[in-house]
């Protein structure tokens, strides 16, 4: 144990682990938190959270139409609001591990078809009632009901039965899934009393903050939950979320000291903003992608040579530099990157006018312009990115015609309907979920129309494979297949860029989502 402690201390000195995880890990050796604290080197001990103050977040991505029902959350503000008052049974940590939350323990059988989650005892909801196994069961049932409008319906589909057994929730799956805990960390699956069936909008949860006022699209206020089950979080007296959709208004609110943290910094101003006094800009590479989708089963994109021609005709590095101003990672025509567990890097596909021209010639395309549909809402900078693509393709002798359409109705009438268009994906916590959502033949959102029995079989095999080495290899094969055969052109992974004042301490980067995966208000404090 002594050696392990020495190792931990070394890690914390080099900044590799945070004070919090140091304490957690020392606790794992049976040390008390108090003793753990005394072992900390001085620098880290100075990080002791201070209590008090009102934390104000200026957030983009909320509307007057938002609800407090976690099942309907689909944009940044409802996501953040749910994070304040609610908890999920498990959570994905910044380094991609599963952290037990309302479940304190989990076990699975050998083939991953039966999972048991032991629910934590002594947790109270904001209305004073106790969290029970039945509440968790009812929550899961509400989100997996075929009639439900829940955003988590898709990921709950594979669960055949949900039952309570003593302190445990037992989930039985139709086919094994080694990633189930990752799926259950989904932000829609906030545990509500009686599953929130009677009162989905009540915003009664087990979280750090109790909702005081909720004015959708305007402002939300929260007070500290005095009975919070997790004593390590929640250092402020209260939280205020102001909905500020205009990017310029957000940055000026931060600069003039009216809010303490903002999200979604425009990459074009991020460097400038970072130079302002008292302002810290944090970018973290996430799993979000900006893409151009071709329908691999629709002419002319059903021709593999034409698809390859277009894949070689895009200058990915130029896109990262010009569209993301360097705040992002280069894409490789696969929807996953190093932020995913079990990821194996493939050789980088480069911009290659010669190969593009060869494939274009081999495809026998008649030279008529290929229409690329794009709207401002496709992703930030999509129209400019399409213009760059047009230029780089022109240099390979391929004519692209950009058809710009209005934002209105783009996600219902163009994306997943039009055979060649721009889009974005927010990413998923694990590879299986990403591939299952968008690359299975049967998936509703197969927006590249990649229809292949081989690929389906590999995705399903990887899902139930419990041997990590074999699984990693399967995912590597899947990635190779998708890179070669699918209709996906993925030029870039975008960063989450948020910004806060230098009065905020305890901020840590989290690739899961902006604002430390939504937990910034629970984990930071005023220095």
């Amino acid at each position, binding site marked *: 144990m002594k050696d392990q402690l020495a190792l931990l201390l070394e890690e914390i000195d080099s900044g590799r682990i945070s004070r919090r995880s140091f304490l957690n890990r020392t606790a794992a050796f049976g040390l008390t938190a108090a003793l753990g604290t005394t072992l900390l080197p001085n620098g880290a001990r100075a990080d002791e959270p201070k209590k008090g103050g009102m934390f104000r977040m200026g957030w983009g991505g909320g509307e007057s139409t938002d609800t407090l029902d976690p099942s309907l959350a*689909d944009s940044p503000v409802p996501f953040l609001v749910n994070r304040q008052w609610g908890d999920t049974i498990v959570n994905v940590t910044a380094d991609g591990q599963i952290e037990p939350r309302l479940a304190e323990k989990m076990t699975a059988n050998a083939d991953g078809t039966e999972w048991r989650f032991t629910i934590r005892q002594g947790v109270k909801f904001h209305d004073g009632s106790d969290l029970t196994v039945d509440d968790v069961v009812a929550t899961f049932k509400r989100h997996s009901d*075929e*009639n439900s*409008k829940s955003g988590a319906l898709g990921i709950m589909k594979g669960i055949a039965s949900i039952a309570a057994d003593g302190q445990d929730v037992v989930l039985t799956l139709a086919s094994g899934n080694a990633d189930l805990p990752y799926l259950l960390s989904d932000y829609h699956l906030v545990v509500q009393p009686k599953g929130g069936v009677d009162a989905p909008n009540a915003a009664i949860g087990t979280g750090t903050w109790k909702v005081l006022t909720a*004015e959708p*699209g305007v402002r939300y206020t929260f007070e500290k939950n005095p009975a919070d089950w997790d004593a390590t979080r929640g250092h402020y007296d209260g939280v205020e979320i*102001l909905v500020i959709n205009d990017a310029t208004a957000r940055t*000026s*609110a931060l600069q003039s000291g009216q809010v303490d943290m903002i999200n979604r910094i425009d990459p074009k101003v991020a460097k400038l903003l970072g130079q302002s006094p008292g302002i810290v800009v944090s970018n973290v590479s996430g799993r979000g992608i900006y893409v151009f989708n071709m329908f691999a089963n629709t002419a002319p994109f059903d021709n593999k040579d034409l698809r390859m021609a277009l894949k070689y005709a895009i200058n990915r590095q130029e896109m990262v530099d010009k569209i993301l101003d360097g705040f992002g990672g280069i894409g490789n025509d696969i929807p996953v990157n190093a932020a995913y567990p079990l990821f194996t890097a493939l050789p980088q596909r480069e911009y290659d006018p010669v190969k593009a021209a060869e494939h274009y010639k081999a495809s026998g395309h008649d030279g008529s312009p290929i229409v690329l549909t794009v709207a401002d809402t496709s992703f930030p900078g999509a129209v400019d990115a399409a213009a760059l693509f047009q230029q780089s393709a022109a240099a390979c002798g391929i004519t692209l015609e950009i058809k710009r359409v209005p934002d209105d109705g783009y996600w219902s009438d163009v994306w997943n309907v039009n055979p060649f268009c721009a889009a974005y994906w927010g990413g998923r916590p694990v590879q299986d979920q990403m591939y299952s959502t968008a690359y299975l033949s049967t998936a509703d959102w197969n927006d590249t129309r990649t229809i292949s029995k081989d690929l389906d079989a590999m995705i399903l095999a990887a899902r139930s494979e419990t041997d990590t080495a074999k699984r990693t290899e399967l995912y590597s094969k899947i990635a190779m297949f998708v890179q070669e055969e699918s209709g996906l052109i993925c030029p870039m992974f975008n960063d989450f860029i948020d910004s806060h004042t230098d009065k905020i301490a305890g901020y840590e980067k989290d690739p899961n989502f902006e604002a430390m995966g939504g937990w910034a208000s629970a984990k930071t404090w005023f220095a």
Partner: protein
Amino acid sequence: MVHPILKLVAQRIALGLVLLWAASVLIFIGTQILPGDVAQSILGQSATPVSLANLRAELGLNDPPLTRYMIWASGVLHGDLGHALTNGQDIADAMGKRLGNTLFLAFWAAVISIPLAVSLGLLAVRYRGRWPDKLISTVTLATVSVPEFLLGYILVYVLSVKFRLLPSLATINDGMSFGDKLYAISLPVLVLVLVVLGHMMRMTRAAILNVMQSPYIETAELKGLRPIAVIARHAFPNAIAPVVNVVMLNLAYLVVGVVVVEVVFVYPGMGQYLVDHVAKRDVPVVQACGLVFAAIYIGLNIVADVVSILANPRLRHPK
């Protein structure tokens, strides 16, 4: 016999009500032919065919349009605007708050801009062709020409970020004192004043100049009255009709047209509320907002008409 003025005013009001009804029909038809579908817009990228069908049935989107219009119109006449499709909030409640905020902002912008515009107009006429006239015209023309969002950003940059004098966020809520609210909205009020000032000022100036050509002005001048008295006492009353018209137009703009300013200053007014619900195809809210905007616009124009009628002595004192 009914006084002809009463008759005229009654006619105007009746016409206004007919217009309002026509507007309600247009709004209803307009919201029916919007592209896209409410259920699809609410669920967005996370829509599946099953959840779409469920939501459509729940929202009553399968009834014929005429039935829906009758249900809606009778609800409105009973003061019931219904519930928002997207978040189930009572529309009258939610909109009432937003409308109150919009009127609060418009009121303070009007209280400052109207007297200022009229006085500047009078001053400009008094010093016509000389430097005060030119200064007033140039400055107001400049502020009216700069797009309002740019004006907003410039003021935010200078007054909030650089000198930290005024708040860049104008979010107000019930917990704030009256003074806090006024302080919070100081920047948007300033922008709105600058935006509407030019139009009203120039109209006042033009209308008075028009009257200044009349023989009775010459008489007044020959009587030896001071120029400013001639303008204020003799010229202005006869220029009221066009001035009131343009003032009402600007008032209507202050209530229904300030969504850009609301966005820049994050002000919780009607404009942003309407835009959010249009984007999500929340038809009952869009209809209710449309109706309220139409009523305000028509109401203000009725006021302008009535004031013009009353300002006309020939109608006030019939033979």
